[in-house]
């Protein structure tokens, strides 16, 4: 296929997807989160600008990595001239939660070709995940889950990139005292609430929150890993304690 016909095909495909009802539903659900994502993206962008890596590299990193918390965690290390492997290890610790998301998405996307699965993976984030699981606690046979995912993911990606690039370019024009990042924290708090479906999820959330605070002094954002491990351990124990309930979800 020539480049031109390939582009035309891509355009037609994108147009067709954007007209599907599931895509529209996903996009609609993504819009209310935009204010939190925009505020957080702006803060991340300002942090990138202040790290002194230059506008081009900052935009390059934002487009390619597309993981706000990993980027923010990496910045002080890059500024301080830490070895590359320390930055990568930190990125890994912050990104381990994506593996959990990936695990939960698999049954919904397993029927797609591998290339599409990887493309969808690139768009995974906290916001999409929480919205997706809130909408689809269980598989709905015949529903195009990937369209819903794409709808909310495209909105999130667009708003995030627009905000972070604005932050990178505007840089020092946005004072820290505005506390913009708090809107992002509130967005995550709201998303956490959507996942509190049962008493045991409450306990898991509290366990993780306490562990993350207690282990905060650990290097390379290991506190997040510790928190997830603690909550998973609790989940295993809870499953053992009530084998009858554990049978419910295969």
């Amino acid at each position, binding site marked *: 296929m020539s480049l031109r016909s390939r582009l035309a095909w891509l355009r037609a495909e994108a147009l067709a997807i954007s007209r599907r009802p599931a895509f529209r539903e996903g996009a609609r659900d993504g819009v*209310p*989160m935009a*204010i939190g994502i925009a*505020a957080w993206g702006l803060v991340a962008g300002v942090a990138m600008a202040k790290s002194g*890596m230059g506008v081009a*590299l900052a935009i*390059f990193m934002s487009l*390619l*990595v597309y993981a706000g*918390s990993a980027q923010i965690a*990496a910045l002080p290390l*890059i500024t301080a*001239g830490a070895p*590359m492997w320390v*930055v*990568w290890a930190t*990125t890994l610790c912050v*990104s381990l*939660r994506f*593996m*959990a998301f*990936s*695990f*939960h*998405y*698999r049954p919904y996307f397993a029927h797609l070709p*591998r290339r599409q*699965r*990887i493309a969808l993976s*690139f768009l995974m984030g*906290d916001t999409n995940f929480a919205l997706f699981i809130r909408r689809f606690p269980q598989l709905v046979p015949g529903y195009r889950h990937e369209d819903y995912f794409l709808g909310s993911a495209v909105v999130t990606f667009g708003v995030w990139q627009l905000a972070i690039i604005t932050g990178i370019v505007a840089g020092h024009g946005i004072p820290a005292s505005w506390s913009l990042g*708090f*809107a992002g*924290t*509130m967005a*995550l*708090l*709201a*998303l*956490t*609430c*959507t*996942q509190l479906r049962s008493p045991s999820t409450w306990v*898991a959330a509290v366990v993780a*929150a306490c*562990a*993350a*605070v207690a282990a*905060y002094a650990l290097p390379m954002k290991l506190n*997040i890993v510790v*928190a*997830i491990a603690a*909550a*998973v351990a*609790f*989940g*295993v124990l809870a*499953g053992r304690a009530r084998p009858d309930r*554990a049978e419910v*979800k295969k």
Partner: protein
Amino acid sequence: MNPLEIFLTALGMALITLLCRAFFMLPEQDLPMPQWLREGLRYAPIAALAAVVAPELVLTQGHLVDTWRDARIFGALAGLTFYAWKHSLFGTIVCGTGVMLALRFGVGW
């Protein structure tokens, strides 16, 4: 770090985040996994979200807040209350942020 090092660092970061995101998407067959671990992993996403949020709310420069007059905590409580009341994501963000800003700039906390 010089620009080339930052470029390489960013490439590596992109690869690591993508590998994490695609980890369970890459294989054609489901990875074999014991039932007890599947059970436990159900709690991983909420744990991850809570683990990212909690330190942002109760830590200042890595130390636990030592005063109850912290605008963030009341903002978060306002947000939680709003969520419990209306179940609205947008409302939770606006209400929580609004209360935090009001306390910070109105009362000076």
